[in-house]
């Protein structure tokens, strides 16, 4: 996948299933039979990856939800989106 920027639109792959429990997400990717646990921010990102909102929209939504350094948040979300894409959980929207 090419470099992820705030304008990139990503969606969950169709074989990804997940459950939200007490702020964490348990994520399964069917084709690989893998199970991952994401923290609260990771779970939010997964929810936001709907193929319609851009990564920049995710950053705005998370900045409204969580206090802290918005520059650091943007950097972390971009990096995390790249990780999820690399892991095969997200694909271009």
């Amino acid at each position, binding site marked *: 996948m090419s470099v992820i920027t705030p304008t990139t639109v990503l969606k969950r792959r169709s*074989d990804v*299933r997940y*459950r939200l*429990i*007490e702020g*964490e*997400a*348990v994520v*399964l990717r*069917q084709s690989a*039979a893998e*199970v*991952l*646990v994401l923290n609260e921010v990771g779970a939010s990102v997964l929810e936001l990856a709907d193929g319609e909102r851009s990564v920049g929209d995710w950053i705005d939504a998370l900045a409204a939800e969580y206090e802290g350094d918005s520059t650091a948040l943007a950097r972390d979300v971009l990096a995390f989106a790249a990780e999820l894409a690399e892991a095969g959980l997200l694909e271009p929207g």
Partner: protein
Amino acid sequence: MSFGDGFLRFPDLFPGRRGGEPWGDRTVAVDVAGGPYLFTGLSAAQAAAVRDRFAGLCRDASEAAATAMVATQVFRAPAADFLDRDVRGWEYTLDMEHAPSAVSLAGLRLMARLDWGPHLAGGLWTCEEAGEEWSASVFENFLRVLAAYRLLAEEGAVIHSAGVTGGESAFLLLGPSGAGKTTVSRLCLARGAAVLSDDLNAVRLGDGGARLQKLPFTGDLGDRGSLGDAPASVPLRALLRLAKGPEERLRPLSPAAALAGLVAAAPFVNRDPWRREALLGVLERLARAVPAYELTFSLAGDPWAILQSISP
């Protein structure tokens, strides 16, 4: 490699429906979690081998037929239909193909299918006429898969785990192969606990909470059924993810981490795209209902004492 290639000479001819020539007219009902499971069309030798392997769990067929929830027909298949495999140093894994209303299985000298129409029913084709290869390999491997799918329909699951109990309640030990399930089971046994199975256990949710049920499928420990041969069911007190370390420790796990461990440990069904949502639902309810911990154990320690310190 496509479905059946590793086991079948003619995978394209895999049975499209349950039918064929039965081995005989014998019927056996095996009463394990989710059952009793009724098997028809067996030869006398096949029925005897099943009764021998699952002694104490076989029920009178006519009695069981009235209550059996899952019936499986057993059919002949020519030996030439199956590939000869050199199994030395090889970890045997059934080949499975999933569809919305059926699951197909291929393995060593077996072909099988599970059909939902709408009730679960099975068909098993084999060239094994009798003996250990039939009962311990063909029959038992099919029964493991059948029980896993049947339990899912009953708010339950088969979990790759060790189950240990003091009689009043039970603990489910989770972890991949090599994590220490059998080792901790041995340590608990040495302290007077009973082990349900150190390989596969059944978990069921009900009005009274989660219960752990013995399955007749054991790992390296073999059958240590001090609870008897009946399908014992014990309230589930806690889920434990095992870790090895120099010092014994018990720390709480989040429900999400518990769910991840349960899903990874739910064999057969956790790779089925058509029934994975149902599995997730059952295991999520289990993870919410039962406290979970990470248990770090050492060979010199006493994990049974730690487990017993967990509040009921």
